[in-house]
């Protein structure tokens, strides 16, 4: 009897705690390493993507331009090369990376709060709503910029939130949002708004190709000023996402349990929806509607990094940036004629089959 009263449970306790603690640290370390490696990959990709294009520029020239911008004068670079590398290529690469990060994190948020694996800015009509908002402003002749800020993202934001509200109202059945009807409503709203955008653009006597570029999304002719338009929206959206990442985990358990665990469900969900709309609006106002990034990236990252939203958001942002940078490179160079494809065509061509694979593969089915 004496033997069995030894403090075995306490020993267990210490072992369990140490084990759980070291496991937690191991996971955190793995995440940090993955994030660092991917960020380095991102920087490398940005440099490589800047070097690829119709005009051949050497790596030395790119380095020279970069140093020049840092105030260090090296070998003289002619004006044309400087413009091509800095103002045309690099700005576009940076913009596509930021848009990719915005769309991917918006996808994570939409999937998390709507508990729907098919939700992303595109499928639930928010992207098209944003595009519609911009199209209306453009038609009304509102444009330009004010202190580096453009009214266009604001129009996109209003359009995004309007479309979101319409979709939520349409998909609500007796007080609950049904998963299937959510996507259906998204498609209805998105198709309708696409048609309206086409109409507006036709009335505005723009060519059909311009409409296609807008609806399929493109970075053609975008520069640093657009990076400036996007940045405040991206920063605000990412801030909200980071602030509520733990709530996103809990919201995955459903509304009731989130309430029981102390999450102020309505408030948090509203803030997150605003955050996701900010991200989408910012992205769409500079690049048009680009599908599949927000849908595929969160799934891909979830398979590799697990469901915890803190990690999911960070890794999705970097992955989204990587994917869109390279998609845009493909859009620039794919056609031998020297013409550009809308980048949305590339993401759909890459994302469609990949998403099909994800849906079919057993590992990701366990995720939902």
């Amino acid at each position: 009897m004496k033997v069995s009263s030894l403090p075995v449970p306490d020993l267990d306790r210490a072992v369990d705690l140490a084990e759980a603690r070291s496991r937690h640290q191991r996971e955190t370390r793995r995440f940090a390493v993955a994030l660092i490696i991917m960020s380095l990959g991102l920087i490398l990709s940005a440099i490589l993507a800047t070097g690829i294009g119709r005009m051949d520029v050497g790596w030395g020239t790119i380095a020279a331009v970069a140093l020049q911008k840092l105030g260090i004068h090296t070998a003289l670079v002619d004006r044309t090369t400087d413009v091509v590398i800095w103002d045309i290529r690099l700005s576009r690469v940076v913009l596509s990376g930021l848009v990719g990060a915005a769309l991917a994190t918006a996808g994570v948020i939409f999937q998390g709060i709507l508990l729907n694996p098919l939700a992303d800015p595109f499928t639930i009509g928010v992207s098209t709503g944003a595009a519609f908002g911009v199209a209306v402003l453009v038609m009304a002749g509102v444009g330009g910029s004010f202190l580096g800020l453009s009214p266009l993202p604001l129009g996109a934001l209003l359009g995004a939130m309007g479309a979101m509200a319409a979709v939520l109202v349409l998909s609500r059945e007796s007080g609950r949002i049904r998963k299937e009807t959510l996507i259906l409503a998204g498609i209805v709203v998105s198709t309708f708004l696409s048609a309206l955008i086409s109409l507006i653009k036709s009335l505005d006597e723009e060519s059909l190709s311009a409409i296609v570029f807008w609806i399929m999304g493109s970075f053609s002719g975008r520069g640093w000023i657009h990076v400036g338009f996007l940045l405040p929206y991206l920063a605000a959206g990412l801030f909200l996402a980071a602030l509520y990442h733990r709530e996103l985990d809990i919201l995955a358990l459903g509304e009731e349990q989130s309430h029981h665990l102390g999450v102020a469900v309505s408030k948090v969900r509203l803030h997150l929806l605003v955050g996701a709309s900010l991200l989408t609006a910012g992205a769409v106002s500079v690049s048009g509607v680009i599908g599949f990034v927000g849908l595929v990236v969160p799934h891909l990252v979830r398979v590799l990094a697990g469901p915890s939203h803190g990690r999911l958001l960070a890794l999705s942002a970097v992955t989204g940036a990587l994917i869109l940078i390279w998609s845009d490179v493909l859009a620039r160079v794919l056609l031998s004629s020297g013409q550009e494809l809308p980048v949305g065509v590339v993401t759909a061509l890459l994302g469609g089959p990949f998403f099909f694979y994800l849906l079919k593969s057993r590992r990701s089915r366990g995720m939902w």
Partner: protein
Amino acid sequence: MIRVEALDLGYEDRLVLAGLNFQVNRGEFVGILGPNGSGKSTLLHALSGLLKPLHGHIVIKSEALGGLPSRLRAQILAVVPQSTDVRFPFSCLEIVLMGRYPHRRRLGTLTDADLVQALQSMRRTTTVHLKERTITEVSGGECQRVVIARALAQDPEILLLDEATSSLDVRKKLEIFEILKYLNETRGLTVLCAMHDLNLAALYCERLMFLKEGKIVVDGPTDQVFTPEILAQVYETPMEVVWHPGHQRPYAVMLPLSPGAVKAEEAAETREAALS
């Protein structure tokens, strides 16, 4: 601890419970009983702040429930629902750690205190061995025990259970109630559980509240209200109540609804057989 005054509960146009008045003191172990549709879940939804009262007040620790900030409320009050459907493959430990949410700082890191509390809760519900498994792959009963561990990890003063052990086998049911009883006796945890199992209620609850047709019909100490008359009245079912000689708790024995009817049917059958 909990005070309910002139409480009317319902959904839109349908009134489910009307004119409730009661008080639950710290350290009570209350069973909420009643037939299907009598409003047990509605009452628990209201007590957990999920359902806003149509009229009346719910006061928790001398604060109006509606006025308590969510996190503060979750520090006092934890809820175990009937069943849980989790779609994301969180590990069971991650699920239990979610119970620490109301206690954690917004952007703070995971502390040892959180881990200790989570692991202790898992040990109590015999789920420690599941901690690395994902919640999507454990069985229904295991999942329910993980959810109970999560509620305990909230370190609440009041625990509400809504048919929380219905899906568990006899042994697991008793284990859960032993934990509740232990926490009730040693920590003064206040327990309110809505349940269907009369004998489980009689075994552990010190006080029983019977709901029927939108009202509290009886509310009192188990040994006084767990009587054949009251049970028959509430459930419209003939019952006998026997006191177990060993542990001195009452238990109910159900009687067939209408023994006469069965006999009459048998007689009719034999008559038909004889005629043909």
